[in-house]
């Protein structure tokens, strides 16, 4: 197994295409996991909930808020 991985390493070192592809994979995963998942999403984009109960309350609120608004609209018309 070790021999096989050493062989892969040697062949990748010899091939410029393999090096470019590995660089793209590395940059992509650094961007996706490091920047997006590790920083941008939790810091700026992820909706903030205190815990799961809070989250479920918020979801039910959204379901029912719209429903109540629809009922109010109906009464007005």
């Amino acid at each position, binding site marked *: 197994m070790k021999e*096989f991985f050493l062989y892969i390493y040697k062949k990748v070192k010899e091939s410029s295409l393999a090096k470019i592809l590995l660089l793209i994979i590395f940059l992509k995963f650094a961007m996706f996991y490091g920047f997006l998942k590790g920083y941008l999403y939790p810091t700026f984009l*992820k909706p903030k909930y205190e815990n799961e109960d809070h989250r479920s309350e918020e*979801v039910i609120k959204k379901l029912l808020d719209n429903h109540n608004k629809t009922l109010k609209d109906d009464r007005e018309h």
Partner: protein
Amino acid sequence: MIENIDFTLVNWSRGQFAMIAFYHWLFIPITIGTTYIIAIAQTIHVKTGDPEWERLARFWAKLFGINFAIGVGTGIILGLEFGTNWANYSWIAGDIFGAPLAAEGIMAFFLESTFIAVMFFGWGKVGKKFHLLSCWLVAFGASLSALWILVANGWMNYPVGMVFNPDTARHEMVDFWAVLFSPYAMNKFLHTITSCLVISAFFVIAISSWYLLKKRSILLAKRSIVLAATFGLLSSVYLAMTGDGSAYYVAQKQPAKLATMEGLFDGEEGAGLVMMGILNPNKKLGDDKKDFLFKMEIPKMLSILGYRDANAFVPGMNDLVYGNEEFGIMSAEEKMEKGRIALGALADYKEAQKNNDPQGMEEAELLFNEYYQYMGYGNLHSPEMIIPRKIPLIFYSFRIMVISGMLFIGVLLLFVYLSVKNRIENQKWLLYVGIWCFPLSFIASMCGWIVAEVGRQPWTIQGLLPTMISTSNISANAVIATFWLFATMLTVLVIAEYRIMIGAIRKGPDNLSTKGGPNV
């Protein structure tokens, strides 16, 4: 009318998801389909000992590798988006949606990632049979990854195997096998996977045709065309069969989508299938104007496709919106009323829970369960909302998909016939057609996704959760900013793919040895 819904947020969230899914899909079909062509070529090599088949397998594996390396991970953004832009949906459906997505990750990681390394670097280094097994496992692994995400998507179109827990506001899975083996999901999986096989067949045919036109790598190109055209022809016939299955399940489970696909405003017994037509742009729901400016249809075919009965009644958009007593079709208004009862019962349940009133909770839960299947309708504010708004987009996309699919069968048949007769090299016009069919196959599959996803609107979960309720409580500006960020990132990746792939195609297979060693 419903000021508490931020439609800028909803529309940009939808747009962002569609944009990323579009880019992601540029990589997927070649990843899934080419693996089978590589595995078949390598099988022929192992069986016959002919080194040219191995060279062929290695060349396509090289192009597959470029596509895989650049495309891998583009789906990660979609996964992250569920948590950021679609937090409500993720919470409500997470128990069901999460399981297939996790299974997809595991399958992708263990099967594809492990055996891809053996497939790429194992040529001449590991035993031939083990290497061949790795090629097939990569192919099955890629398809299995797709299975799980398509099961999740199938569930959104036809939700089964779950109950709604009013305590947590979540759909909870009670029957994993019902979700996995839902006929809608299975058919969707087969239809989508087969479309990937056809696209890959045209990927191989297009490049091989270019080599023949340039009079390069003649033997490899001719063998590649025979293999890909035969594989593509069988796949495209099966694609048509699963397309028929899709029409049947859509008719049963999503009649509004079917009516929109067909531009059918008023239902008919023995309805015809519109082969070609131009929709009347001034036609609106409920009016008396003509549906079409022009149309050519196959009599009774829509009834046969949708209901397996030449005289079956196919409901039109007006029947679904305003109801049709004669055929027992409930109006959207009635469904909305039932949905409001379900949501009212949910509100009562929460109120009783807050007041520690077990009897009130039990009564409310009983009422809720009775009307649960209409829950989503309670959030709609007009009956017309049950019809997807983009009728022309869905109607024309469906026709582009179907007509292209029929064209592909004819083109592939010609490729197989002329290859077997060894006359393919001289048919320049057909070689050009083969090249152009590759982008056309992508357009056709994109049209299929438009029909499936735009046609599902206004729902994220059919009948249970409208799209406008599924988004997160975040600023629309954040979604707009990330839209452009992702668009830029993914465009760079697509340009990289294009440049590296074109470079590798120009370089061609001539420098690939058959003595073992990696492809790269």
